[in-house]
């Protein structure tokens, strides 16, 4: 299979879907003429025209608001919010408008929008350009939350997100943009709400999303060398959550580690832990371990930022500490 980058995979998904459905429009800052700050939308304005790829002013409220309105009016808008940090500016539109419209209209309305965004932790962007807060959206019923960790998943999940009739928040990870992976030429989609076991194992379960899936896999490989067989689950979508895959794994391994880039308290790691507690408590033979960002804003200094972030080493250390393995 050919190898392409994460960005290329996203672009292919957009391109293929735009060809397939002429109701799709893209809007956001610099997504048109420039092709997107991270080049995800490169070439689309040339191929599909200015009517379908729209450069907006620096107006996050209007970007999401207009996407919602266009969706109500029969289009399928894909809004780009350049950094996840800026999604906070549009929080009212995302959470108080888009996510609740269907419900509070008694099922009359549907809001088929995709909001693509990315978090930039790990690129020396400082406190205001590195925030990652998926838990807020998991806490807000009415919107789906998708987080791909590989080019393959990025393409398949983005296509499904676009075909979904609900608001979908599609969170990309900036440091993964240049990573490469196998992506078939043929058409495929990945259903929302299905986790993937990225590596099978029997001894313990590492549950992760986005960038941390890669860290988890590295950690699992090192465990392998010590004869410990870790299973790595990539949740891929947080809403809907694939409880079954989680529970089945825990029943098998009895040990759970959850790795995610969000800040520890009230994180998705906390929630996944509760999911395990509520659905597989009796199978646990040890505490549930969270490996997350510490309760600090993100420091700029590249070295400090590195020390701040979840890594394979941190995952291994926590495993050693919690389950009494001798790894070093």
């Amino acid at each position, binding site marked *: 299979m050919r190898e392409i980058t994460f960005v290329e995979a996203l672009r292919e998904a957009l391109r293929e879907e735009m060809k397939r459905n002429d109701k799709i429009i893209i809007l956001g800052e610099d997504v048109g003429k420039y092709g997107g700050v991270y080049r995800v939308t490169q070439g689309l304005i040339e191929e599909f025209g200015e009517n379908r790829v729209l450069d907006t002013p620096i107006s996050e409220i209007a970007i999401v608001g207009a996407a919602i*309105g266009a969706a109500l*009016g029969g289009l399928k808008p894909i809004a780009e919010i350049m950094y996840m940090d800026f999604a906070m500016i549009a929080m009212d539109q995302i959470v108080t408008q888009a996510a609740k419209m269907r419900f509070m209209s008694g099922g009359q309305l549907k809001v088929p929008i995709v909001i693509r965004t990315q978090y930039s932790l790990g690129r020396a962007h400082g406190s205001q350009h590195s925030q990652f807060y998926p838990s807020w959206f998991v806490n807000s019923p009415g919107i789906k939350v998708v987080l791909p960790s590989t080019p393959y998943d990025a393409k398949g999940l983005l296509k499904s997100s676009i075909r979904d009739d609900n608001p979908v928040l599609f969170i990309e990870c900036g440091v993964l943009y240049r990573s490469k992976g196998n992506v078939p030429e043929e058409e495929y989609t990945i259903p929302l709400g299905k986790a993937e076991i990225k590596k099978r194992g029997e001894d313990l379960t590492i549950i992760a999303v986005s960038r941390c899936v890669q860290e988890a896999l590295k950690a699992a490989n090192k465990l392998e060398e010590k004869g410990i067989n870790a299973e790595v689950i990539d949740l891929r979508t947080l809403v809907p959550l694939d409880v079954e895959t989680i529970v089945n794994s825990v029943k098998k391994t009895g040990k759970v580690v959850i790795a995610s880039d969000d800040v520890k308290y009230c994180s998705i790691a906390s929630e996944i832990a509760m999911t395990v507690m509520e659905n597989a408590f009796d199978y646990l033979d040890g505490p549930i371990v969270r490996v997350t960002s510490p309760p600090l804003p993100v420091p700029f200094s590249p070295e400090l930022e590195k020390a701040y972030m979840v890594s394979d080493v941190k995952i291994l250390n926590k495993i050693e500490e919690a389950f009494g393995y001798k790894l070093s």
Partner: protein
Amino acid sequence: MEIRKVQGASLSEIDTDPLKLLRKMVEIRKFEEKIEELFLVKGTLIGPAHLYLGQEAVAVGICSTLSKEDYVITSYRCHGHAIAKGVSLKKLMAEMFGKKTGTCKGLGGSMHAAISLEDGLVYATAIVGSQIPIAAGLALANKYLNKKIATVCFFGDGATNTGAFHEGINLASLWKLPVLYVCENNLYAEFTHITRSLSSRSVAERASSYNMKVIVVDGNDVVSVYKAAKEAVTEIRNLNGPIFIEARTYRMKGHGVYDQAKYRDPKEVEEWLKRDPIKIFKKRLIEEGIMDEKDYERIENEVTKEIEEAVNFAFESELLNFEELYKLVYVE
């Protein structure tokens, strides 16, 4: 851009049956009076409710130029727009009661009761200003789909101070979107007078700085409103725009149903009550020989009866089953 003024229009300038306009205005009036009673006298209803009393000429003047297909998007002060656009009084009333026969199955309540897709009433939001960028998006869809219908977005004077207003209006103007923005300037945002929240010299002047057509209309004169709207809506339907109407009006009662509105200067209130849009329109129709007192009474009686029926319908309707709620969060 220049700001146009429309006021004192004569009946000959409009192409609709004035009695229809009157009838709609009376419907709104009686509906709101009933809501007030149900809250304050009977205690049947609870929660927030924002009456449209005194502003009837705006909703009726504007919405009477629209067809069912045209989009309307509004705020929590939405009963008037719903009735003017043709939403069934029964469904509207049932929504106030939180019943499953309501427009929103009882999940929206007064502040969202106007949402009625079958009537082209696309949305009613309780977050001030949030409808303004959404309206731009609706218009974008129409333009893209070459759908020759209008999008009309209602909001208040207070909403012009929100970030959502600025970002939404800027986008609409920049992209020349076919949307009619209607600011109902009733001089107050809740309990605060417009002079204590708006730095610009007027709403119209603020709107005009976004480089679009602006019309100031006497919002208590349904004929002038209709006239201004008719022209604007025609342009919008031809996918030109945006156009901004500032309708100068007044709410007869408090901000919400519980508000006694004591913070207003009694003189100001008195002056405006003299310009009660129904009273002045009724007087005019009688003076111009289009109807007499009896006709008016007949209209009132018919409407009163309809509203009683709506109340009974709402009262007797059932609640949604709680388990049903889980099916209404996501599209399957």
